[in-house]
């Protein structure tokens, strides 16, 4: 560990806190449907889209209609991408002449990108044509992110509105977020990436004769345009197999910092937007404080473990921290920080191979996802996931003092608590259930590359990542098989929509309630006590369920590593 490494973490958090308010204000304008300066340019596109598709953006939707329209739209997107991937062999912009993807790979990938997971069972440069990358995948990166933010807006309205039957219009929310936030920011970011060395071309590859006289073929493509939204939308699906570790996706320490900031920017902004929407900025800060505490704890442990290195390699005469699966330009600090950021959010991009982390260093990304990716979390998904935990936390506090719990002016009753538990229970049920299935079937056991407890960790990580819609991997697992593509595809779909639908039901129920003004008897949902309670609930409800599985995987692996045991 070095002073520079800690300074990096401090500067990263400092910039984030500076970004929080402007990003939150911009999001609030979109939440309210206000005009922005960008309407001069993109306003006609917005109204044109509504007119052609027969949408009245002013039509208010109840939670059921909001949910149905969102699911149908996402299903249409799923089928669209599936078709592109299957047919890519006969479509243009396929310079390397790839065939169409297999049924199970196309299914897995289409689900993966629609659900904002961006799990990759394939290697981008050896499987996907440029057209598939652009038309099949980049579009999903935008729209799955916009869907997530729209859903967060819907839940905010549930808290903010009084005696209302509606929670907004899905099409208007989704379109505005795409046009006035994601697209313009991505244009700026993509130009920055190109200037930094990220390729943006329709060529498929270039041949090189190396100094040692060997032929090397470098894959190229429209990388920068995908890279920008991949990070900003917390998607994480890389153009290349190794994602942001590839020098063409992430060439410098500066692009790396910008990528990490992109992952968190919208997520932290939404905490501010939430505070503004419910009329009490401190509510947003309390959530952000709980998120940042959990984040810093994870970053510290991961950095410490990776810097300490692997004693097995030290005994072989190797000096220094754990560099297996890491790039020299990022070193230990930027690799560990990136791993924590990408799993705290539901991004899943990687700039180092999590599979090769030390046992405990690799456990932190895993645990981050198991907590429900609520430490900042995916765009939209993070804050609505966190608010589900907040509902549980006020419920627990209410039990302790024997009063009906309230949160930001709404009474939290049996219906809300049941639905929140239902949504949160999806994670352990799916993750642990499917991991168990894969651990005892032949097709499942054929997957892991590593032996011993680490092999189990690979399986556990895969299902955790899929259900959590993260997309990062212990990538040694061979997942491009009908068994894994199928199961992981189902896991991603359930992990996305079986949380969203109860969440929207909560939003609809809350919107219908009257405002309950805070009294001296109300449990305060700002301040240190509340932040501490939130952290406790996230760790106990989110984390404790997974402790036995962690003991079998990374913790056993750690003990083996310390004792020099090889598998």
């Amino acid at each position, binding site marked *: 560990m070095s002073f520079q490494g800690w300074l990096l973490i401090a500067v990263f958090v400092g910039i984030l806190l500076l970004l929080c308010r402007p990003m939150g204000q911009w999001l609030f304008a979109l939440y309210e449907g206000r005009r922005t300066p960008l309407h001069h340019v993109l306003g006609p596109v917005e109204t044109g889209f509504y007119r052609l598709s027969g949408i009245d953006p002013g039509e208010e939707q109840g939670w059921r209609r909001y949910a149905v329209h969102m699911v149908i739209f996402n299903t249409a997107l799923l089928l669209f991408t599936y078709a592109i991937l299957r047919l890519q062999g006969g479509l243009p912009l396929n310079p390397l002449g790839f065939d169409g993807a297999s049924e199970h790979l196309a299914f897995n990938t289409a689900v993966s990108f629609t659900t904002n997971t961006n799990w990759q069972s394939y290697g981008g440069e050896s499987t996907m044509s440029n057209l598939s990358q652009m038309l099949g995948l980049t579009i999903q990166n935008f729209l799955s992110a916009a869907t997530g933010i729209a859903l967060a807006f819907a839940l905010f309205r549930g808290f903010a509105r009084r005696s209302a039957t509606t929670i907004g219009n899905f*099409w208007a929310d989704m379109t505005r977020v795409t046009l006035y936030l994601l697209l313009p920011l991505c244009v700026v970011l993509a130009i920055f990436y190109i200037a930094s060395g990220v390729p943006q071309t329709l060529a498929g590859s270039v041949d090189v004769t190396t100094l040692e006289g060997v032929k090397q073929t470098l894959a190229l493509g429209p990388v920068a345009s995908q890279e920008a939204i991949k990070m900003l939308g917390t998607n994480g699906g890389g153009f290349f197999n190794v994602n942001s*570790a590839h020098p063409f996706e992430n060439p410098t320490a500066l692009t790396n910092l910008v990528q990490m900031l992109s992952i968190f920017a919208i997520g932290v902004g939404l905490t501010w937007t939430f505070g503004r929407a419910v009329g009490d900025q401190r509510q947003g800060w309390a959530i952000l404080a709980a998120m940042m505490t959990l984040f810093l704890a994870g970053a510290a442990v991961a950095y410490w473990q990776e810097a300490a290195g692997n004693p097995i390699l030290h005994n072989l005469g190797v000096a220094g921290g754990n560099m297996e699966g890491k790039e020299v330009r990022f070193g230990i600090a930027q690799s560990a920080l990136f791993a924590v950021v990408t799993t705290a959010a539901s991004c899943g991009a990687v700039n180092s191979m999590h599979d090769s982390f030390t046992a405990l260093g690799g456990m932190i990304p895993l645990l981050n996802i198991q907590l429900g990716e609520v430490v900042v979390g995916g765009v939209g998904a993070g804050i609505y996931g966190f608010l589900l935990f907040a509902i549980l936390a006020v419920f627990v506090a209410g039990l302790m003092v024997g009063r009906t719990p309230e949160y930001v002016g709404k009474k939290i009753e049996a219906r809300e608590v049941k639905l929140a538990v239902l949504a949160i229970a999806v994670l352990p049920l799916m993750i642990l259930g499917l991991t168990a299935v894969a651990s005892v079937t032949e097709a499942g056991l054929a997957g892991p590359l*590593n032996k011993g407890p*680490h092999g189990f960790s690979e399986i556990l990580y895969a299902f955790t990542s899929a259900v959590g819609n993260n997309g990062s991997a212990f990538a040694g697992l061979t997942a491009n098989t009908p068994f894994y593509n199928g199961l992981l595809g189902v896991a991603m779909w359930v992990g996305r929509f079986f949380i969203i639908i109860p969440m929207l039901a909560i939003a609809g129920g809350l919107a219908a309630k009257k405002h309950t003004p805070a009294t001296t008897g109300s449990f305060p949902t700002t301040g240190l006590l509340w932040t501490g309670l939130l952290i406790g609930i996230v760790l106990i409800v989110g984390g404790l369920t997974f402790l036995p599985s962690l003991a079998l995987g990374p913790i056993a692996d750690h003990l083996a590593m310390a004792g020099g045991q090889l598998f």
Partner: protein
Amino acid sequence: MNKDFTTALRPALVMTLLFALLLGLAYPLALTGIGQAIFPDQANGSLVRDHGKVVGSTLVGQAFTSDRYFNTRPSAAGDGYDGLASSGSNLGPTSRVLAERVKDDVARFSGTSPGQPVPADLVTTSASGLDPHISPEAAFFQVDRVARVRGIDRAVVRKMVGDSVEHPLMAFLGEPRVNVFKLNRRLDAFGSKPAA
């Protein structure tokens, strides 16, 4: 409920197509145009040409395994530095395969520079398998061998390495590093005679 479904169909289909045109085609193609016009070097892979022939990219590593050159890190991309198959080893901390591979590489490097602990990056595979860099320690570690094989004075090679070290931005962003491709081109440009 039924009406919720029927009212969703037209917007879902038309919006999918409209956004496909905007985000899937117009956006990446416009950026391709901008990139090719303003930053043609970077947009095409930061390639380096010698007499019109592409000899490498300043960003992507290539395999250097001979003793005449500063070696790059071991690579898990294809058979090594395969630009169409980026990959890490994905071997975990308790992997026997990893331990044995590292042991072999340590023996190989210790043979040419005995008595010093081997810098970690020199015997570990990178995340991409295409890492263009090694640490300054890993470069200095190889000076004696390269100087001996090329028949150049050790101090000259050492200075070449020193001049090749790239420093972190603003002292904390990134790591000190040496671009092996650039360093080896310097070495070639120095015009050495290979020692017998």
